[in-house]
């Protein structure tokens, strides 16, 4: 496997705010790489430095072993977290506009087909729904036949059905051997789409690995969750308090259940599940809702 992009000791500060604080990782060609972190972790700042939109305060971004330059812009597809589209022109006109900006653009029909844009092709950009808009923005991102595509929270604000449809689009792009760099707040999404996941917070990298290895390393066995009903003094092996719940990570479910029975806790509301990325995320960053 070849490394397609690499960042080394990347830093960005806005005045006294250290948005990105010495980040290093590399991305293998052809994979889907997920960059996760709570609000304000520095994901957008990182991705925009990798795109060449923001100048790093310190550190290096390289594409296929070379520092990124203007030529690089012809080979990347970008979807920003927030973008306005030119007003008063239709989806088709916007696609045509962007096609004219690249040396070897994808054909209009292909873009329309991949992103299912045929229903909205003659609609004014301003009259698109959130999901239609995201499909259209993805369409713009795939126009250049990109070698790597950056998607910053592409599914935020979509309904569950639209999100699943979007996943299919991303899988299709992956199938073309395009490398994908994705940020998201949905752990389920990261688990389904990503081959490799980096979790960051406060501008620093916390973990980086495949989703399976990450889960293996942090959790063994199952996660048992039960309302503690005020019994905060209760001590059980592998148990931690989390809000109104007692959470027990265990690799010996039989013993844990016996312990619980003998503790006389009310078993109403008990749940047992295999830990997923969501749990890992919470464990690593402490919160998903910090802003």
């Amino acid at each position, binding site marked *: 496997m070849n490394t397609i992009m690499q960042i080394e000791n990347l830093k960005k500060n806005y005045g006294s705010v250290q948005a990105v604080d010495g980040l290093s990782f590399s991305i293998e060609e052809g994979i889907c790489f997920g960059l996760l972190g709570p609000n304000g972790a520095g994901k957008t700042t990182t991705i925009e430095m990798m795109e060449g939109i923001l100048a790093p305060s310190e550190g290096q971004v390289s594409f296929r072993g070379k520092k990124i330059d203007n030529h690089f812009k012809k080979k990347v597809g970008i979807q920003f977290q927030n973008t306005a*589209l030119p007003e008063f*022109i239709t989806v088709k006109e*916007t696609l045509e506009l962007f096609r004219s900006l690249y040396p070897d653009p994808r054909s209009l029909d292909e873009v329309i087909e991949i992103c299912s844009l045929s229903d909205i092709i003659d609609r004014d950009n301003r009259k698109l729904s959130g999901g239609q808009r995201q499909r259209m923005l993805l369409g713009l991102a795939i126009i250049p036949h990109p070698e790597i595509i950056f998607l910053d929270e592409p599914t935020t604000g979509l309904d569950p059905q639209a999100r699943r449809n979007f996943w299919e689009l991303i899988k299709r792009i992956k199938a073309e051997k395009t490398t994908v760099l994705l940020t998201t707040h949905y752990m389920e999404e990261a688990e389904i789409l990503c081959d490799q996941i980096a979790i960051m917070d406060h501008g620093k990298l916390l973990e980086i690995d495949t989703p399976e290895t990450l889960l293996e390393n942090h959790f063994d066995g199952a996660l048992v969750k039960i309302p503690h009903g005020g019994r905060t003094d209760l001590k059980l092996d592998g148990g931690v308090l989390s809000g109104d719940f007692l959470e027990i990570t265990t690799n010996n479910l039989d013993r844990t259940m016996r312990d619980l029975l003998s503790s006389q806790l009310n078993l109403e509301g008990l749940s047992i599940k295999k830990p997923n990325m969501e749990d890992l995320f919470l464990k690593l960053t402490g919160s998903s809702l910090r802003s």
Partner: protein
Amino acid sequence: MKKFTALVYARTMEFVRDKGTFFWNLLFPVVLVVGFSFAFSGNDETMFKVGIVGNNTQLEDSFLDLKAIELIEYDENPALVLEKLRRHQIDMIIDFKKQSYYLNSESSSTEVLRSLGRSDLQNFNEQEISGEAIRYVDWLVPGIIGMNMLFSCMFGVGFVIVRYRKNGVLKRMKATPVSPFTFITAQMVSRFVIVLLTSILVFAGTNLFLHFVVNGSYLLLILLTIMAILSMISLGLIFAARLKSEELASGLMNLITFPMMIFSGVFFSLEGTPGIMQNASKIFPLTHFIEGARAVMIDGAGFTDVLPQFLVLGGMTVLFLLISSVFFRWE
């Protein structure tokens, strides 16, 4: 080139489809011109103004005593008095020193005055001169069109690019292989074509029923308009270079367009204002356009007469472009 034309097309469509702005750009100047032409078309048809040069000793009890005739005595330079007749400010001159009377062949009152005075003026020579009437609206129209050009250039380039910067369109462009130079030039070309066409359209449209006096060449007028648009667009670009807030941009633009509107002589002549004001007004491109356009339209000035205006507008364009290219940032 393909990039360039696509960008020009997108920007032009944005303007044409934005119905509000589109009609405002066309309608606003038309309404102003037509409105002013009515407001100032003082009805002096019932009254004939006759200029008297020298002492009226011979025409006692003549047609000059009629109620409909107003006598104005002049003892200034006869050439100036003739100029007044040529511009229809008076209808007839009786020169007792030269024993002649003068009429303007293009004035509607000439026939009436000639027959009224036929018997009384037997001993006088008739001299006929010709010249179209200069109305306030003839004088005003370059001002209004210039003002409209100014607004359209400043807001259409300056303000719109600030908005693009704020809402992320510029950032999206930065992420493509398009260079800032290509992008900005495309914006300028689109706006240039729009402003030139609307100006010509407004002029031609109002001309249909107001019949402006144009003594000089139309080609020269158009060239002057082109130079003016270039300088105004470049001025707008200075505002577009860095600002990120639409409010700040529009505030600053108003801060400079309003004085320009007042001190560039759109509505009233700067002649007779204090010298310092006249000199200060020279820093505005609009002043030079209006000056040049009036000279061509009213005085029939030729290229060499308005060369100074061309040079100043060209110089301003280069200066403004330099300033904005030094300061420009995508973000």
